[in-house]
């Protein structure tokens, strides 16, 4: 069965790290279809803006980085299988917005990717996604399996 687009925003009632003042968690579950990608990015960005992410971070850094992470999850992680879901979880603290994107795939090795800005690679059609994420957010990490990316945007 196709996974429906589902959004939930809730204030966490569980103990948060000392740095957390707002304790808001934004969750979005979407099917592995590129057609819903833009809507999912827009929903997350609008909620982050409402929670105090700066206008430029919400309009540019978050949107592009999240778009890249979701495209990777849909295309490569879940191979566009509509029965598989991609989950986005944003945790808002007084210090940062932590955005986690999780797919149901086998994962990948992020150390294998090239840097596409070298003169010989500049005309390559692909390979810029993860590079852009690293440039646009303050911190990037992956889980051991390689099917979850965690991106941190510190408050400006």
């Amino acid at each position, binding site marked *: 069965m196709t996974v429906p687009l589902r959004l939930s925003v809730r204030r966490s009632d569980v103990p948060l790290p000392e740095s957390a003042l707002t304790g808001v968690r934004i969750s979005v579950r979407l099917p592995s279809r590129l*057609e819903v990608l833009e809507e999912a990015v827009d929903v997350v960005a609008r909620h982050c803006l409402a929670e105090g992410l700066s206008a430029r971070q919400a309009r540019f850094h978050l949107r592009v980085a999240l778009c890249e992470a979701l495209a990777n999850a849909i295309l490569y992680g879940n191979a566009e299988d509509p029965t598989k879901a991609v989950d986005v979880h944003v945790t808002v603290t007084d210090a940062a917005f932590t955005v986690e994107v999780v797919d149901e795939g086998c994962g990948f090795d992020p150390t294998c990717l090239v840097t596409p800005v070298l003169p010989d690679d500049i005309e390559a*059609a692909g390979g810029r996604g993860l590079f852009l994420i690293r440039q646009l957010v303050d911190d990037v990490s992956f889980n051991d399996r390689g099917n979850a990316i965690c991106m941190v945007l510190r408050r400006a």
Partner: protein
Amino acid sequence: MGFTVRKEPTGVVVIGVDGQLIVSNRHELKERVIEAVDFGSRKILVDFTATGYIDSSGLGALVSLAKKLREAGGELRLAGLNEDLRTLFELTKLDTLFNITASADEALKGF
């Protein structure tokens, strides 16, 4: 979200990107450009004045289209990038690959 296409009296085809240029619609841009080339156009200007953001797939599409135009003896130029979009091109060093001007009107002069 969509694309507008118009042909200038000089023969330059101007394609406007309304909304995002991302993984889900990059093929549509490719189709518009290839269609123009098939009809004999060799000078294509992509106008980003009404564009929100571009992802790596959109950048990749522009790179491959520029190459295709060059091989056909033509040129792909870009115009109307806002500060965010210009930053994307600078981060990826693609600002060195394209002729980029502030506005479509400016780009059309001498193209």
